[in-house]
C-alpha cells in the first residue's frame, strides 16, 4: 500500500514528453534531486524530505535560429564511476552539465545535414554505461561519449547504427560488472530494441523486432529487458537471445515511463491512462524463465502521466509527473 506524500511544486508544468522525470538519489544523506522538462526550459530541484526545503534551478536549451525557442526533449542524471553529469537533450543538440546544473561542460550540436525537410531533428534517450554516456538521435544513430574522470575533455567515441527510426530511450544494467555480456539496450519509435555490449567498441548482441507501435521506455536488469509500448503493453525479454518471456496488458494508453528498483527487482510502469503499476520481476529457480507478479496499482486522477521514478533503490517510494501539472507527486509505502 502506498500513500500520498507532500507534492513538490514546480515553477512550470511538465511537458507531454515520455520519460519526463529524472531522479538522482545521492548515496549519502537524504537529499534527492529531481529534473523535469517544461518545454524550452528544464527545472532542477533538490529536496530534503524532512524539512521540505527546496533548491531550484532552471536550465534553458541552447538557442537556435528558429522561429520559436528550442524545445528540450529530456533531462537525465548520468551516474558514472567518478562523477555525476546532468545531460540535457534538445532539438539542437546535447548539453552536459555538472550534476547541479551550474556549469555546462560540453556541447554537441546535432548534425542535420541529411535530414529531409519533413523530418524533426532532435536528440532523445540518455543513459550512462561505465564511463560512457549514450545519447540517441532522431535518425536512429546512438552517440557514445567517452567521459573522463574529471574535466571537460569529453569525446565522441562511437556512433552506433542499429536503428532506422528515432531513438526513444536507452537503458543500461544498474550494476556494471566486467563480465556482463549485454549491458545496454536502445529502443526506437518503431518498437525495435537493440541489445549491446559496451566497451571501447560496442557490439550488437541481439535485435528484438517491434510490432508497429513505438517503445517509449525501456529498462534492463539482470539480463531482463523490460519494454513499455505505445499500446499499453509491457514485455519482458531475455536480453542475450531476445526471447519474449512475459507479455502484460498493463495499461489502456501508451506507456510513458518505466523505472527499476535494482535492489529488489521492482518495475514501475506509468502511462497516459493515469495509472501507475508496480511489478516484481524474478526468475524461476528451475527453468530460469522470467516471471512477474503485480504488486500495486495507483490511479492519479485526471492526470496524463509523463514521467515516473522510484525515489530509492528498494522501491519503497516513487514520484510521478503529469502533463500540465506544476508539481511532482510523491508516494511512499506504508
Amino acid at each position: 500500500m502506498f500513500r500520498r506524500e507532500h507534492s513538490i511544486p514546480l515553477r512550470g508544468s511538465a511537458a507531454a514528453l515520455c520519460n519526463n522525470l529524472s531522479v538522482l538519489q545521492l548515496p549519502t544523506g537524504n537529499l534527492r534531486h529531481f529534473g523535469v522538462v517544461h518545454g524550452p526550459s528544464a527545472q532542477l530541484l533538490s529536496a530534503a524530505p524532512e524539512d521540505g526545503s527546496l533548491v531550484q534551478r532552471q536550465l534553458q536549451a541552447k538557442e537556435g535560429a528558429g522561429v520559436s525557442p528550442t524545445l528540450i526533449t529530456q533531462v537525465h542524471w548520468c551516474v558514472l564511476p567518478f562523477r555525476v553529469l546532468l545531460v540535457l537533450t534538445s532539438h539542437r543538440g546535447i548539453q552536459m552539465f555538472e550534476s547541479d546544473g551550474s556549469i555546462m561542460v560540453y556541447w554537441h550540436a546535432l548534425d542535420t545535414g541529411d535530414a529531409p525537410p519533413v523530418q524533426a531533428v532532435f536528440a532523445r534517450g540518455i543513459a550512462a554505461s561505465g564511463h560512457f554516456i549514450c545519447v540517441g538521435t532522431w535518425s536512429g544513430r546512438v552517440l557514445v561519449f567517452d567521459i573522463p574522470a574529471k574535466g571537460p575533455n569529453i569525446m565522441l567515441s562511437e556512433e552506433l547504427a542499429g536503428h532506422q527510426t528515432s531513438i526513444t530511450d536507452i537503458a543500461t544494467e544498474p550494476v556494471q560488472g566486467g563480465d556482463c555480456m549485454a549491458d545496454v539496450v536502445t529502443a526506437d519509435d518503431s518498437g525495435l530494441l537493440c541489445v549491446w555490449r559496451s566497451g571501447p567498441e560496442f557490439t550488437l548482441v541481439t535485435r528484438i523486432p517491434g510490432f508497429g507501435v513505438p517503445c517509449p521506455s525501456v529498462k534492463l536488469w539482470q539480463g531482463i529487458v523490460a519494454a513499455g509500448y505505445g499500446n499499453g503493453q509491457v514485455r519482458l525479454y531475455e536480453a542475450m537471445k531476445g526471447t519474449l518471456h512475459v507479455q502484460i496488458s498493463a495499461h489502456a494508453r501508451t506507456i510513458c515511463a518505466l523505472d527499476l528498483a535494482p535492489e529488489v527487482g521492482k518495475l514501475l510502469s506509468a502511462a497516459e491512462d493515469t495509472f501507475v503499476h508496480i511489478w516484481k520481476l524474478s526468475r524461476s529457480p528451475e527453468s530460469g524463465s522470467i516471471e512477474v507478479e503485480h504488486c500495486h496499482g495507483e490511479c492519479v486522477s485526471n492526470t496524463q502521466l509523463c514521467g515516473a521514478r522510484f525515489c530509492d533503490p528498494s522501491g519503497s517510494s516513487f514520484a510521478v509527473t503529469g502533463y500540465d501539472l506544476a508539481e511532482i507527486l510523491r508516494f511512499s509505502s506504508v
Partner: protein
Amino acid sequence: MSVRTLPLLFLNLGGEMLYILDQRLRAQNIPGDKARKDEWTEVDRKRVLNDIVSTMFNRKFMEELFKPQELYSKKALRTVYDRLAHASIMRLNQASMDKLYDLMTMAFKYQVLLCPRPKDVLLVTFNHLDAIKGLIQDSPTILHQVDETFRQLMEVYCGLSAGEFQLIRQTLLIFFQDLHIRVSIFLKDKVQNSNGRFVLPVSGPVPWGTEVPGLIRMFNHKGEEVKKIKFKHGGNYVTATKEGSFELYGDRVLKLGTNMYSLNRPVDTQTSGASKNSTSRAQENIAPNPLAKEELNFLARLMGGMEIKNPSGPEPGFRLNLFTTDDEEEQAALTKPEELDNKVINIQAMQDQQRSEELARILGELEVTDQPRWSTSKGDDLLAMMDEL
C-alpha cells in the same frame, strides 16, 4: 518538434470556429420573410459560412499551410483566425473574438487530450471536415475545395507511423500547455472540472490495437505460453468494437471533433477563473513585440494566399456578438486586464519596408472598430429580442 502539425492545428481550430459561428448565427436567426433589413437571416448565415469556408480552403492558402514548418506562436496563429473570421460581412468585436478563440482552443485541446491513439487526431480532423461539408452543401465549388484538402490530408498523414503521430500529438500538447479556460458546456457535461482541467475517464473502449488491461501471459524459452494470470488494473475498460475510417467517406466511430453545440447548448466561457489563467497567458505575452521576423514572413505568406472578398459600397458589415447581450460583451472587454490585450502586431519595429507595408495593408483590413461603421448593427437589436424572451 514535428513539422507536420500546422495543417492539423489549423483545420481543427477552424472547424471549431465554424461550429461556434454557425450556432451563434442560428441563435440570432430570424425567418427571412419576417426579418428587417438589419437582422440575421438564414441566407446571411449561409453566406457567412460559405465565405469563411471558401477562404479557409483556398488552394494557395492550403499550399502554404501544408509546407513542413514549425508551429508558430499562439499570437501569430490568432492573427490568422482574426483575418478568417472577417472573411465575410460578419464583424466581431475584440471581446467576442477573444471568446471565440478561447472556445476554439479549449475544444481542440480537449479533443487532442482525449484521443485514444495519437493517430486518432486524424479522425478528429476528418470529423471536422465532414461537418464543414455539411455546412456548405449547397456550394459545389467549395465542396470540391474541401474534398481536395481531404485528399491532401490523406496523402500526407495516412502513411505516417505511430511514432510520428506520437510526436505530432506531443507537439500539439506543448502548444496547448497551461491553458485552463473553463467552458460552461464542458463543465455542464462534466468533462472539465471547476479548476479548468479535463476529466480523463478510466472506462470505456480501449484504443484500437490495445488490449483491455489485466492480463499477464508468460512464455517458456520455446515461445509456448505456459501461464496466464489476471491482475486488477483499476479501470473499467472494454474492447474496442471497430476502427474508424480514414477514407474520404466513412464511419469515423470517434465522436471527438463532431459538433457539440446546438441551439439548446449555447456557447459560453466563464472567465471568473481568469486570475490563474492570466498569469500563464501574461507570461506568454512578456516576450517583446514585435513578432520575430520569421513569424511576420509566415503571416504575410499565409495571409497573402487568403483571397478575402471585402465588403464595399453600401452593403453593411453585420456585427456578431459571441456573448448573450451587448452589455456582457462590453463588460468582458472592460474587465480584461491590460496585459492580456491581444493586439498582436507592432509593425513599427519592422526592418523590411516592403513587408511591413504589405502587412500594414492586410492588418488595416483587420481593424475592428468598436462602433460599427454603418448605421445599422444586427447586434443592437439582439438586446431587444432578449427582453422579449
